[in-house]
């Protein structure tokens, strides 16, 4: 950091209006987004269990291949785009 940078940085830091602007720059995400992200590990674990079961259960495997989104939702797993892609990839590899 140069002295010029330091000066402008400090001037900004000490400015109440700028602090207010910075506080306003980080609003919370819409309701439900944080909870959904926090629930990811649980859904990921649920997917692991379901795919492991499908290796020995032809009917379940057929259901997953037939309508993956519905099969995940029925199992209480939130079928987010990322999780669907992950599940499809693992079903292809299995």
């Amino acid at each position, binding site marked *: *950091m140069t002295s010029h940078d*330091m000066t402008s*940085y*400090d001037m*900004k*830091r*000490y400015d*109440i209006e700028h*602090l*207010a602007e*910075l*506080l*306003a*720059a*980080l*609003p*919370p*995400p*819409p309701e439900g*987004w*944080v909870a*959904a*992200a*926090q629930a*990811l*590990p649980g859904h*990921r674990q649920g997917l692991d269990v379901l795919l492991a079961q499908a290796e020995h259960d032809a009917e379940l495997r057929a259901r997953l291949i037939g309508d993956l989104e519905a099969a995940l939702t029925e199992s209480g797993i939130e079928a*987010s*785009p*990322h*999780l669907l892609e992950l599940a499809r990839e693992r079903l292809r590899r299995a």
Partner: protein
Amino acid sequence: MRALTDAEVVARCRSHDGDAWNELVERYSRYVYAICVQGFRLAPQDAEDVFQEVFAKVYEQLDRLRDDSSLRPWLAQMTRTTCIDRLRSAARQQPAEEVELADVDHVLELVEEALTVRGALATLPETCQEILDRFFSRDQSYRAIGDALDLPAGTIASRISRCLERLKSAMEETEPPQRLADR
């Protein structure tokens, strides 16, 4: 109680500590959201998809993070890349739409600085944190803040002013600009 550093949160997440994961998401949710919406101006549905995808990637790729204290820049880079991928994909589907990225860097600088201010905010008394967050970040009225915190609405303006002064002092005690990078 002392807040965990990023490195401690990451280490606990690797041990499948659910509370640590919740803390990581809570700590960086506004940051990721701001990059998506303010930096890259994603539409709400795209922003939500990217937001969830970023945290899914973090969860899956945490073992690849070489330095546990580098969570913030790693997360920023991951969010940028995911936003750009999303914009490129949208541009392929609707080639007529121009992807505007000209002022992304300027906005991202502001977001970085804003996150540092939030770090300083976390050192203030809880009432101050609530008042400033509700007024500036959540855009709530004096009345709504008063109702939520059981305070007379007529005192909110002066409390905001006092809390901003305290925040300013907290920032002045902060060593620029890396001190809070490891929060």
